[in-house]
């Protein structure tokens, strides 16, 4: 009855369409910009797949988007939760870090080095582990994110290193959405409290900027290890995570200066190796930052020059308690520091309507890469430092051969100081079958050079440094906007991976890296979306993916072969009140120790946008309290993933 009432009321309300109005009765510009539309996804503007803004249908590669509205409605609290909405991505957690598996490939212990992570185009994978941090320690608080674009596939022809399985670009909000003061508060039943304050201004001359401070704290974190012993579980109150973030942006026309920094302290009880009946606190301190300056300059009607300079810092210190031979409690201190600068120059040239050239050069100067291993920061045990450089040159040509056929070709050549030389070609074809239907074919390659950690570790053990891992991907995509309002798409891909860099854990704490056997990944991703006049929105994706070693046909561990994701938003009798249902289902995953069963998890959130300035979201994450396990760590320990949790978040804009 309630549902019938909801549908009926919403339909009546929407009968007052702007199509029926005369000019004098039109909504204000602000109201028009809030109107919902069912835009054909092929017309949506994206910038990640081609490294410049264009309609999604013009690219030979697919780009998926999660919007700020979805982030709000589903109360997504960090990048990890945002990424789990994308087709083909699987996210797991060890309660400290988030681990991504893309299209069936995700190696245990890998800190997401096979996905290139960008913030407004600035590369933020660090220069030690190539890690992309996606948990609470990601640079940008979710309420500052305008949208996240994910372009799956081999992207090295434009982006070089790390764009192995795809590129994720987090795009921050601009002055139109961040004006005045904003307060965002969120809390959940798992003792996590987030507070974020920001202030933004925009002047009519085009100057705009915002500043944001965020605090996130989680106490009493449940131990994910299902076999955690009593001495640990009794100290659960000591298991805590604390994050502070600062982010700021200034823009004037096409100039952007941005900075972001995050400071994290993670502490968790651990059993002492020397006395397993005793537990002490293991601590991680993490300090990351970046400053970027980018500018777009129109040279003439045909040419634009983009300049992008960024400098980043990464600092990680771990404190591991142990009992010294003399019997006293001391700490191993492990310091990792990285500092690097990227410069990217891109020239966009349109000599004719049917041709577009993108020519670019980008380089990375690793100023500092160091490890220090000591006891209590006074007794040095090991120290190593290095500095590296890498440079890449790329060219991409888009050719509109006929009105409905477009060809894209390109390549990139990368060179690093460690004598890595990689040539990454790319080919694409977009065939516009009709106004509402297209077929795309693409072939691309990508590489990931061994990172500093992998190199130095093997050199320490006097082993050969592994070769770069390589991937070739052939992909076909079909997309259609159907007359009944459904937008549907499907991608079929085949990837061949060589030299996959894999860790071999000789003892529990020692690791060596080697190039593993060749892998073939096959998969299909299907997506469908529709918006109804009642305000109901539905998005679903289904992925079937299989990654196997070529020689013995064994499946890669840590990868679900089937994923199903569903997002539904349904107005509850009024436009400003919505029920939002997110369903996530994964098939069984294998780990070296056991088979991890499949599961389906449901998040149910009620969002209330009482005014454009005030939004409240309340609901249950993992509403049915589904118990499920993942094994993202090299130890293959089965880790319990978060259970049911009530969540409340409030966003208030003081204009």
């Amino acid at each position, binding site marked *: 009855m309630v*549902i*019938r009432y*909801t*549908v009926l009321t919403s*339909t009546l309300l929407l009968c007052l*369409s*702007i199509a029926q*109005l*005369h*000019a004098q009765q*039109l*909504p204000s*510009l*602000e109201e*028009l*910009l*809030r*109107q*919902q*539309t*069912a*835009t054909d*996804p092929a*017309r*949506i*503007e994206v910038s990640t797949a081609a490294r410049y803004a*264009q*309609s999604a249908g*013009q690219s030979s590669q697919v780009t998926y*988007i999660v*919007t700020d*509205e979805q982030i709000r409605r589903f109360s997504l609290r960090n990048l990890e939760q945002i990424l789990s909405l994308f087709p083909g991505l699987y996210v797991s957690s060890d309660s400290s870090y988030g681990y991504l598996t893309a299209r069936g490939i995700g190696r245990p212990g890998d800190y997401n080095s096979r996905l290139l992570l960008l913030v407004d185009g600035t590369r933020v994978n660090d220069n030690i582990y190539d890690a992309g941090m996606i948990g609470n320690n990601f640079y940008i608080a979710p309420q500052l994110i305008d*949208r996240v674009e994910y372009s799956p596939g081999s992207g090295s022809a434009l982006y070089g290193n790390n764009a192995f399985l795809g590129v994720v670009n987090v795009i921050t909000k*601009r*002055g*139109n959405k961040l004006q005045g003061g904003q307060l965002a508060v969120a809390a959940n039943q798992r003792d996590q409290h987030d507070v974020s304050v920001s202030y933004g201004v925009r002047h*009519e001359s*085009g100057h705009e900027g915002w500043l944001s401070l965020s605090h996130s704290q989680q106490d009493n974190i449940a131990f994910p290890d299902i076999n955690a012993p009593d001495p640990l579980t009794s100290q659960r109150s000591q298991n805590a995570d604390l994050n502070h973030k600062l982010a700021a942006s200034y823009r004037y*026309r096409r100039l952007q200066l941005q900075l972001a920094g995050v400071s994290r302290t993670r502490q968790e009880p651990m059993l002492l190796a020397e006395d397993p009946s005793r537990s002490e606190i293991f601590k991680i301190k993490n300090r990351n930052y970046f400053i970027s300056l980018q500018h777009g300059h*129109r040279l003439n*009607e045909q040419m*634009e020059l983009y300049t992008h300079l960024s400098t980043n810092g990464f600092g990680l210190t771990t404190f591991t308690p142990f009992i010294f031979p003399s019997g006293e409690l001391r700490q191993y201190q492990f310091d990792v520091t990285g500092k690097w600068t990227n410069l990217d120059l891109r020239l966009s040239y349109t000599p*004719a*309507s*049917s041709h577009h050239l993108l020519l670019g050069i980008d380089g990375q100067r690793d100023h500092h890469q160091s490890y220090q291993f000591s006891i209590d920061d006074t007794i040095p045990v090991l120290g190593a430092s290095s500095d590296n450089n890498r440079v890449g040159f790329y060219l991409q040509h888009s050719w*509109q051969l006929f009105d409905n056929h477009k060809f894209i070709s390109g390549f990139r050549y990368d060179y690093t100081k460690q004598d890595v030389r990689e040539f990454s070609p790319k080919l694409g074809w977009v065939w516009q079958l009709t106004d509402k239907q297209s077929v795309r074919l693409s072939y691309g390659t990508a590489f990931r050079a061994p990172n500093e950690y992998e190199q130095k570790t093997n050199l320490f053990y006097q082993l050969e440094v592994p070769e770069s891992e390589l991937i070739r991907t052939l992909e076909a995509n079909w997309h259609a*906007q159907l007359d*009944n*309002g*459904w937008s549907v798409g499907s991608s079929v891909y085949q990837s061949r991976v060589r030299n996959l860099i894999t860790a071999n854990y000789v003892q529990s704490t020692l690791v060596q890296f080697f190039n593993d056997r060749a892998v073939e990944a096959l998969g299909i991703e299907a997506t469908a979306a*529709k*918006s*109804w*006049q*009642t305000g109901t*929105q*539905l998005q679903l994706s289904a992925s079937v993916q299989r990654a196997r070693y070529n020689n013995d046909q064994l499946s890669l561990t840590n990868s679900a072969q089937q994923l199903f994701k569903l997002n*539904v938003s*349904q107005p509850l009798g009024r436009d400003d009140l919505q029920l939002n*249902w997110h369903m996530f289902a994964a098939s069984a995953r294998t780990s070296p120790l056991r088979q991890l069963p499949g599961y389906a998890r449901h998040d149910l959130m009620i969002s209330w946008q009482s005014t454009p300035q005030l939004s409240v979201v309340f609901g249950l994450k993992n509403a049915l309290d589904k118990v499920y396990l993942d094994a993202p760590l090299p130890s293959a320990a089965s880790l319990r993933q978060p259970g049911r949790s009530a969540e409340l978040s409030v966003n208030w804009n003081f204009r």
Partner: protein
Amino acid sequence: MRWLTALLLLSSALLAPAIQAQSAEASLKAALLYRFVQYSEWSANVPERQHYCIGGDPEVFTALTAMLQQSEEQVTLLTDANEAATCTVLFLSLHLAKQADWGLLLQSPARLTVVEGAELFRKGAMFGLIAEPQRISFRVNLTLARQNGFHLSAQMLKLAKEIH
């Protein structure tokens, strides 16, 4: 019971009527076009009445014609780039980006120009509609607008996604 509720919600969603995507979106574009004109001032050669020209999108033309039927302003659906001589406001749809002659129409300084997509905007339009999932936003080339003698209201500029 939980599953039943979920199933009911999904069924109600599937059975509900779909948005008439094309006409609703075209009406929104037409309304935005009208508002852009309202928030812009011609500093010289102020047209006595606006002549809206729509290139490449008959649905926007229909929506705008309906919207302006009680006013004296003129709306024309362009079938050829050569028909734009008297236009004071020009709207070009996304697919015209592939045709060079339409892009040349953006060069006229006395004309307020609104285009769809980044491709045409880069060719020198003053306003660009940005298609986003579930939304339309816009960007403004303020430098070009001022060069062409237009004054754009601060209220509108605050709502623009990008100011170039």
